[in-house]
């Protein structure tokens, strides 16, 4: 079903792109791309020559000039088509987004509180600073910040993720996006943007590429391509006087015709990359969007490829979100089973994943079945910031579990003490990267539950890959240095920042940048904002605060911190595609010389026929074949331009070597084969 | 303005050292090689100059060995090559005349160095092979046996680059001087 839909979508995009290809023939559009503009002027020139030829004053047979002219126009249309295809895919996405921006009515509040009087106004009239109420079933009218209430919100309109998310005032989950739907409860929202500047608006603008600005590398490449175009213009334009001399000197033949000169020029200038350049850029943004990442600029996408340090939050990125109990380590003279039993009792009512894991471990290890806490008549003592312990009171038994110092304080109050053996266990566990939870019953310390961070499967290999790509990984964690070091070693990161504070993070980024490195990070909290602003590639989680989103230069709609790695790859792929197609385009020239030069001078210097190494049938078929190849190769490479060249996570040397072989050597050989085949086809069709 | 003055100072310093000092020192070292420093000249007993060992001079009398063709006609103050392309018809025409002059035939083809003009037109050498080729003309012109001429050529044959070249050359002027010394110079009026 989905494939049908996307196929349908693609067909529609193609139809639209074909129309766009013709609309883009406007010279005002063409002049923006110097390479294609030269083709444009050349085509116009040969069109005039065609007319002249049909009027009987042709410099060559009218049919020949006409064929060349048509294929030159096709060359431009194909390039236009590539650009239109790339834009079309963005537009399709934008249209889908725009549908979510229906005319919503907003419940505007007179005062920023729930009880205030409500006035119903159209959403576009809302200004920054207004407060609105959104209740279950309402569409949130504008981007804003929750100032009161908590609610579940469906954000699938922008993220594509159907599971609802929680939005509440204060903290890091206070940002809401216009066009998303409140599913339950209510929110009071302060609008943070003016109409037309909403997140949705920006996204639409970006994917449509309407105001797409050239990125720095794209500008540099454009300059290079324009210069190469001028160089080849020199090389071909001077052929006219050279051939005049040759005609004079050899006393035979005609000087090179304008049609052939234009054909040669168009074949030599880098039309392949020139025609696909903007499509590559748009497609790069598009791939980012397909990864559910919105970049605020193409520049950021480009910079992503340059990143050499990744700051990764430990929890959620490197380790599974939660720690799990892996062992019960009893104190001297305590039966391990007794410890497990006490630990289980203390955790029965503890609904945190850590608590659940204790119950699970007791069951798997000592076959202690889960008991119903209410049937036992036990009372649960929840964790508080003051006690930093949780536990259970049961028939006079008081069981507590908590951090070593909290439990020690508790047993001391009851004239007990923390045995030195337990203290040793606690230290050992911490050193191994685990978290020790000490269990005590009354004044007696029973032992230690070892909680451990579980490193995500495959993450170590991923980091090794990154290392080969030349990217360092730094783990950011609130854990102490001992724990952090152990996890860092297990996960295979290059470095870690323990007991991380926002200030420490910022400092770390600045240090790395001073060493000439480009740093990427993810963040969601308001306190991440300074670090996000400092980082070169800063991906804010969509679930994060407005401040974080403002500070970053990308937003990950999936709020998936692992996405950073993908983002880097997309950035690299963008540059690689440009480089590969540039190489391919320039390498093509060798074959085109061998096709056209002998043909162009056949009447003056028949000896140059020896350079016709492809044994093309006739001079005119040779020139035409080269021009046709030059046009068709653009079409052939559109999928590559849109998809990007294949990226493999290997070092720069190996990448270069592979790409040089594929696109350099391939670019050298392909046109020899292609031109020969086209020539054979032309002969077979008696077109030449 | 400042830069201009400084440039002039530096220009003056470099000129004094590189033109004045350097030339003077090399002229001084030249005292160690007085003969070649003056141009490797060969003089008659009366002091008049016959020519330079290094510079070809014109010979077209049959009893002398002839040097390679010269585009400037052995003008030692206006050296030049023919600067003709090896594919040039002009070159064929010129070589035709040379071939006629030497009377070369398919049976007795002319050594290439006698047909090809040298770079500066002043190449003092011909190959030993080319000298032997001319022995057939010089010997009767001098009225001596060919063997005597061949022996003279062999005495004057040298290898310009020792083991690094296979070439065997003779200096035409020196060979002709030896001819005049060893064989009756009066016969030169024949």
């Amino acid at each position, binding site marked *: 079903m989905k494939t049908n839909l996307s196929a349908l979508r693609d067909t529609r995009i193609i139809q639209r792109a074909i129309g766009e290809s013709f609309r883009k023939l406007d010279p005002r559009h063409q002049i923006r791309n110097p390479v294609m503009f030269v083709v444009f002027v050349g085509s116009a020139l040969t069109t005039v020559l065609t007319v002249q030829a049909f009027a009987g004053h042709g410099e060559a047979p009218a049919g020949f000039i006409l064929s060349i002219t048509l294929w030159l126009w096709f060359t431009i249309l194909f390039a236009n088509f590539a650009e239109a295809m790339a834009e079309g895919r963005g537009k399709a996405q934008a249209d889908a987004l725009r549908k979510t921006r229906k005319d919503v009515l907003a419940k505007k509040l007179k005062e920023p509180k729930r009880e205030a009087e409500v006035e119903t106004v159209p959403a576009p009239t809302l200004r920054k600073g207004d407060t609105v109420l959104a209740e279950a079933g309402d569409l949130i009218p504008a981007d804003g910040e929750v100032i009161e209430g908590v609610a579940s919100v469906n954000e699938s309109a922008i993220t594509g993720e159907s599971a609802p998310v929680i939005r509440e005032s204060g903290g890091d989950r206070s940002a809401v996006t216009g066009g998303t739907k409140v599913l339950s409860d209510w929110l009071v929202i302060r609008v943070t943007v003016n109409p037309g500047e909403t997140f949705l608006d920006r996204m639409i603008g970006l994917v449509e590429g309407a105001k797409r600005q050239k990125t*720095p590398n794209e500008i540099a490449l454009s*300059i*290079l391509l324009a210069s190469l175009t*001028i160089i080849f213009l*020199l090389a071909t334009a001077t052929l006219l006087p*050279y051939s005049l*001399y040759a005609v*004079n*000197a050899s006393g035979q033949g005609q000087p090179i015709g304008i049609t052939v000169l234009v054909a040669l020029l168009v074949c030599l200038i880098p039309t392949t990359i020139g025609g696909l350049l903007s499509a590559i850029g748009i497609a790069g943004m598009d791939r980012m969007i397909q990864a559910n990442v919105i970049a605020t600029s193409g520049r950021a996408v480009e910079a992503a490829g340059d990143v050499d340090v990744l700051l990764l939050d430990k929890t959620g990125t490197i380790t599974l979100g939660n720690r799990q109990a892996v062992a019960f380590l009893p104190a001297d003279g305590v039966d391990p089973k007794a410890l497990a039993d006490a630990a289980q009792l203390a955790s029965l009512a503890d609904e945190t994943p850590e608590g659940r894991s204790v119950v699970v471990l007791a069951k798997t290890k000592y076959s202690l079945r889960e008991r119903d806490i209410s049937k036992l008549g036990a009372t649960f003592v929840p964790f508080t910031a003051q006690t930093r312990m949780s536990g259970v009171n049961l028939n006079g038994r008081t069981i507590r579990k908590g951090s070593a110092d909290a439990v020690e304080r508790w047993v001391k109050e009851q004239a007990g003490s923390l045995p030195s053996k337990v203290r040793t266990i606690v230290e050992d566990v911490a050193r191994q990267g685990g978290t020790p939870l000490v269990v005590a019953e009354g004044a007696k310390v029973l032992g230690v539950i070892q909680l451990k961070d579980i490193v995500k499967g495959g993450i170590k290999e991923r980091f090794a890959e990154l290392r080969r*790509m*030349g990217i360092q990984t730094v783990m950011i964690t609130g854990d102490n240095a001992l724990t952090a070091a152990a996890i860092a070693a297990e996960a295979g990161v290059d470095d870690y920042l323990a007991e991380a504070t926002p200030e420490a993070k910022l400092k770390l980024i600045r240090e790395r940048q001073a060493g000439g490195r480009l740093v990427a990070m993810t963040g969601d909290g308001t306190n991440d904002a300074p670090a996000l602003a400092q980082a070169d590639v800063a991906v804010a989680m969509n679930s994060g605060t407005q401040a974080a989103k403002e500070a970053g230069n990308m937003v990950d709609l999936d709020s998936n911190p692992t996405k950073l790695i993908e983002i880097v790859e997309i950035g690299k792929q963008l*540059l*690689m595609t440009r*480089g590969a197609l*540039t190489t391919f385009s320039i390498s093509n020239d060798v074959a085109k010389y061998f096709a056209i*030069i002998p043909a162009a001078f056949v009447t003056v*210097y028949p*000896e140059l026929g020896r350079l016709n190494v492809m044994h093309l049938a006739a001079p005119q078929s040779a020139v035409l074949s080269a021009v046709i190849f030059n046009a068709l190769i653009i079409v052939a490479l559109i999928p590559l331009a849109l998809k990007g060249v294949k990226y493999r996570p290997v070092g*720069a*040397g190996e990448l270069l070597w592979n*790409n040089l072989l594929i696109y350099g050597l391939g670019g050298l050989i392909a046109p020899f084969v292609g031109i020969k085949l086209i020539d054979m086809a032309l002969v077979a069709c008696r077109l030449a | 303005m400042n830069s201009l*003055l400084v*440039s002039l*100072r530096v*220009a003056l*310093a*470099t000129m004094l*050292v*590189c*033109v004045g000092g350097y030339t003077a020192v090399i002229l001084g070292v*030249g005292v160690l090689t007085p003969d*070649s*420093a*003056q141009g490797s000249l060969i003089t008659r007993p009366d002091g*008049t*100059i016959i020519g*330079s060992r290094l510079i070809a*001079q014109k010979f077209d009398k049959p009893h002398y060995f002839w040097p390679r063709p010269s585009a400037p006609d052995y003008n*030692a*103050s206006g050296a030049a*090559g*023919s*600067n003709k*392309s*090896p*594919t*040039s*018809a002009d*070159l064929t025409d010129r*070589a035709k005349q040379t071939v006629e002059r030497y009377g*070369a035939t398919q049976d007795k*083809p002319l050594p*290439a*160095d006698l047909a090809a003009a040298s770079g*500066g037109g*002043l*190449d003092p050498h011909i190959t030993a092979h080319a000298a032997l080729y001319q022995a057939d003309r010089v010997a009767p012109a001098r009225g001596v046996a060919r063997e005597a001429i061949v022996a003279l050529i062999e005495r004057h044959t040298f290898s*310009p*680059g020792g083991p690094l070249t*296979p070439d065997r050359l003779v200096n035409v002027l020196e060979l002709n001087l030896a001819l005049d010394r060893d064989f009756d110079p009066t016969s030169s009026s024949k």
Partner: protein
Amino acid sequence: MTAMVFILLIVGGSALLSWPLGRYMKWAMDPDETAGPGRQKLDRIFASIAGTLGTEQQGWKRYMVALLIFNIVMFTVSFAFMALQQHLPLNPDEMKAVEGSLIFNTVASFTSNTNLQHYSGEASMSYLTQLCSLMWLQFVSAATGVAALAAMARGLAGRKMMGNFFVDVQRATFLVLLPISFVVATLFLFGGMPMTLQGSAHAATLEGLQQIIARGPVAAFVAIKQLGTNGGGFFGPNCTQPFENPTFWTNAVCMVAIILIPMASVWMFGRIIGRVRHAGVVFAVMLVFLLAKISGAVWFEQAPTQAFASLPIEQATGNLEGKELRFGAATVPLWAVLTTSTSNGSVGAMHDSLNPMTGLMPMIGMWLNATFGGVGVGMINMFIYIILAVFIAGMMVGRTPEYLNRRVEAREIKFAAVTLLAHAFFILVPTAVFAVTPWGAATLNNVGPHGFSEMLYEFSSAAANNGSGFEGLGDNTVPWNIATGIVMLLARFIPIILPLAIAGSLAAKKPTAQSAGTLGVEDVTFAAMLIATILVVGALTFFPAAALGPIVEHLKFMV
């Protein structure tokens, strides 16, 4: 076989010698703390000669201005000496006034380190002109190139202050060029080269003819001519004139002298930027091109003189037209390639008379102009190709391109592309103009494609600041003098100014860190990339022109 041995000895020997010389040149041009107190004393002397500006540290713009002003002074002073020669001393052969456009051409030629010669030294220049105008320029123009390279390398090493031009030019003159010239000139003296201030010798030949034998202070002149990639001969036909190159051995010394400093410049560059391995890769790439051209030249020159084919002429050793016998057959193609791979331009045989495809090899050398290239400037030209290679390769590894830890962006690409564009322009466009006007057509010494080659070669030589020529061309005309004069000057200074600007721009950037994801510039892969870039971007531009000159001549006559 002996030919192969000889070629390997010259090229290999020069390469070996270039290593210690490169180290010495670093010591001379860019001394650090370890250079010793004696070395510092020398710099103090140079600084005091430079007077008020002696201790100034110059950014790229200041450095450039100083370089240009000094070169204007060079031009003016030499112009004055030449224009006034008939009134000045040291003119034993009573040389007359030189025609205006020829003075312009000649002074432009020597200022730009080109040494294209539209005059014949022994027929038109006084000894004073030869020494004070021409030989002096051979020193200081070469020194300008070495200084520019040192400055550029400093910039690439991240130093925004690129040194002091007035000190650098003296370092290059006094510490690099002068001592080596002493050594080489002395070798030449013992090889039999004349060194005299006496006028022409008047000889009465054995056959009783008058022969006026021009001579002069040749040994001193030829030494710096070869070492400084100048190439301007004391005599018209350059090193084919026996006084300018009397023996096989002086010929060998000449060839080493031609290539030595250009080779050492690469090592000096590597040492200043602190990346000797990178310099090694660049050196290897240059060597590959050099050997390829030598092989081509040797191969094609084996074919005998085509014009003699129908005549009873015995051709055993390949084409001999325009060659001197004493140098041996192997040295001619080698010399032709060496002198055009560097921007030297002195000739050991008449290039006009080389077989067509042999003649293409020197042209390729000048089109690339970076496969060792001129002293200092060859490496600067190669830097342009490196920038392009790094840019394209950088993208192919998925990063914003960077060179020596600094990002290559629009500004750098713009300057590099304009440099490249200028080179193509100066060769192709003037050739086109002269090909269809009597300016060119009326001055040719050969017909057909070879005539075209003569014009193409002339502008290639001017644009590459080479100075050799297809000398049959009657190039001492006002149009040729003015056109090539302008080309030489622009083609000299544009490729110094823009690369220095790039270095300045790079130096101002924040350095990036090196990682496994960074494009390496010290490995075989990069070498391959650089070779491909040079071939495709540098050489391919000229393929159509080559096809209409040497290639068609070859196909027409030689196969």
